[in-house]
């Protein structure tokens, strides 16, 4: 690429901030970023934890071991991905993590160590779910110079999710029918193509004085915006500390760089809420 992928510009933010923001929208525990020794990272949400590979040159397995060992303090399972997935959708993350749910799963697929998407026939180890207690086993593999994820998959229980299995998730089928969540950007042209796409379509509604004070029509509006800051600007608002946003009626945030995704709805409310 010529530029660190993590720092690539993404709709006024960076690729890394975008991807960590998407994952952060789904999981309860902290998002963990594992960087190479001495690697500089762009600014991140303060809630993101940054850890470091002990040694350079051991590929993704090293980062996987470090990240899972940190995540193990918070959860049994983790979604693991690379930083270069510009179209990663929260619904994809949810669908993968639901792969650990034993409900409705044949007995031979129950209790997997890894939930591994196979999209268009290609496995996606860097957009997959892992049991966090795999960390010591992965560390052993790294120590034995077995540095490819395939080495791990050979010795643990992998549940495969092919296109049909992924798209059986109705929410994912609605918002990412082509499973573009796994598209990565390896070359400058990939990045240019991805960046040239319009921002996702979302529905925005302003409430209270944010609606009545705007002079425009009230009610929901459809706009294109890649993050909350862009969405606010589209409806004439500035995130000045007195305005907050709730995405899909869930978490309330004032962070303008929080990613927005296809199918999202955003409610802008006064930060001075309450009675």
């Amino acid at each position: 690429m010529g530029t660190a992928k993590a720092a690539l510009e993404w709709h006024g933010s960076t690729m890394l901030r975008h991807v960590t923001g998407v994952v952060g929208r789904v999981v309860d525990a902290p998002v963990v970023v594992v960087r190479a020794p001495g690697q500089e990272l762009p600014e991140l949400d303060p809630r993101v934890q940054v850890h470091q590979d002990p040694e350079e040159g051991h590929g993704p397995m090293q980062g996987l071991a470090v990240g899972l060992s940190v995540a193990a303090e918070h959860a049994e399972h983790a979604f693991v991905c690379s930083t270069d997935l510009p179209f990663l959708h929260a619904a994809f993350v949810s669908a993968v993590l639901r792969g650990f749910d034993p409900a409705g799963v044949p007995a031979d697929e129950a209790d997997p160590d890894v939930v591994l998407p196979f999209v268009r026939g290609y496995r996606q180890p860097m957009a997959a779910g892992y049991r966090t207690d795999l960390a010591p086993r992965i560390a052993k593999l790294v120590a034995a110079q077995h540095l490819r994820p395939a080495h791990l998959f050979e010795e643990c229980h992998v549940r495969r999710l092919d296109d049909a299995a992924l798209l059986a998730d109705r929410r994912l089928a609605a918002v990412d029918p082509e499973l573009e969540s796994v598209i990565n950007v390896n070359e400058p042209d990939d990045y240019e193509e991805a960046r040239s796409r319009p921002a996702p379509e979302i529905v925005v509604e302003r409430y209270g004085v944010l609606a009545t004070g705007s002079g425009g029509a009230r009610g929901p509006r459809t706009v294109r915006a890649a993050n909350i800051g862009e969405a606010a600007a589209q409806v004439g608002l500035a995130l000045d500390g007195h305005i907050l946003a709730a995405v899909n009626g869930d978490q309330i945030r004032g962070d303008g760089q929080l990613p927005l995704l296809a199918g999202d709805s955003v409610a802008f409310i006064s930060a001075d809420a309450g009675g």
Partner: protein
Amino acid sequence: MGDVTTPPGGYFGQALVVDVTDATTRTLPLPDGVLRDYLGGAGLGVWLMNELAPDGVDALDAQAPLAFVFSPLVGTPLTTSAKFAVVAKSPLTGLLTDALASSHFAIAGKFTGHDAIVLTGRAETPSTLLIDEEGIRLVDASELWGMSASDAEEAVRTRFGRNWRAASIGPAGEQQVRYATISHDGRHAGRGGLGAVMGAKNVKALAVKGRRRVDLADRAAVLAAAKDLRGRSFGPATAKYRELGTLSNLLAFNAISTLPTRNFQTATFAEAPLLSAEDLAESRSVAKKSCASCTIGCEHIYASKGNKKVRVEYENVFALGPMCGVSDPDLVLEASALCDDLGLDTISSGGTIAWAMECVERGLLDAPWLRFGDGQALLRVLDEIGARTGVGALLAEGSRHAAEVVGGGSSAFAPHVKGMEMPGYEPRTMQSMALGLAVNARGADHNRSGAYEADLKGDLDRVLGTDDHVRAAIETEDRAAVMDSMILCKFLRGVFTDPFDEWAGLLAKVTGWDVDADELHETARRIVLAKRAFNLRQGWTTADDWLPERFLDTPIELESGRVATLPAERLRAMIATYYAERGLDSAGRPAAVPTASGTEPTT
């Protein structure tokens, strides 16, 4: 105990205690140390209760004191400072209740020369108590009995003169409905049944008049601070209150699944837009008003179809609208006006009625006409509650007591904490608030806790309560303790960038104390613990710090698909953290609370 002859700036250093049984009075000195420790308003009120209320006294007993408490800021030009607290043992909870109101009553009452006026005893006949600088008079008020509070207030001023200010009760207070209010100028000291306490004393109205001014330690500095604060009060932090009022919460809360609906069975109300401030302001707004000495002007007056003019707040519309499933704005506004006339707390009214509607739905209560969504039934049952007739006789006792009578598992969905009905914040989707509601001394309360602020700020996952939520709830509780005691309106809270420092600065200018932020933090803690100590003496137990079962065993689904649950073990863990952080023992008891008259043992 300090020098009682030269009180600090902003104070008279004394409370007037009136026994309305025989119209006798005594002056209770308020030493500098007490004033500095408890400030005024809710804080000084709990000190007075700890001093004057007999242990275990029935809230409606003649001996139970009823305190009208002013503050050092009352009478200064500081915006929103014309406030008073009414404090007593609550007939609804059996524990402490303190309710604030804003009006000229605060100024006139303080300028009688007292930092607080306390009523005890029981008048032989319905009476009006008049207090001015000359003394007190207890006059017959039989002709006022049955009047609304506002009519009684007007009658008092017509008879005795326009310069009198009267706090009055309505028919519900006379009937000792356990959530009756005391009101002045349309503003209610609303929560906890203070109107019933006043009614039990046979006092229809307390009228005050005075011109006695207090000294201020640094008058020029107070004037400069007032000018600065007034300027800031017009900024973006108060825009919501100025332009639409608190009702603007309704649609926003609906969008984030925190709008209690049909007795907390859901957290969204499909018909919410019909009751929204955004729409009502366009179609029905007839006036905006300010409390005395206030530059914000949060009161939004709307007209109903019957041309009744109604003060509208989020809490009364939530409680009489979505909570009861009623979506017709005319009927909700009429119900709100009816509560004003009867002198009923709208939150407890709505909560108790919504519980009854669910009981009817489940076949537990024989009042088939009382159905969710039926606005006419809402008006009828409010009348019955105010008069204690029909099913209203039961519902006048509040949802906790009514559920004990009705049984059938209905306590699980009686929407109260410690007997006080819940305000319009869904605890499963606001878990800082869940903790705040559970542990608050007053019961289910959004003004003494205010933990919803933490949930709405976005720093915490609002549906997954942790120790961080507890600490955030403690912080809001501390802020409320100081604001409610100084007293400043909470709608100003957003204009303070460093609140404790700025409040200490204001207090120093008024009183002359060398008070700082650290001292105010300690003051907040003292006030919170003093309330807990009072409650302990009145029979509070650890089991009172809890939420109804509905919130612990029934999930709520957010629009995102995420499911909000509040398992009992999570709430228990949060409460344990609260106790530990507050320095309480594992049962939630303070070890000791110092008062001016010594150390108050609590066990």
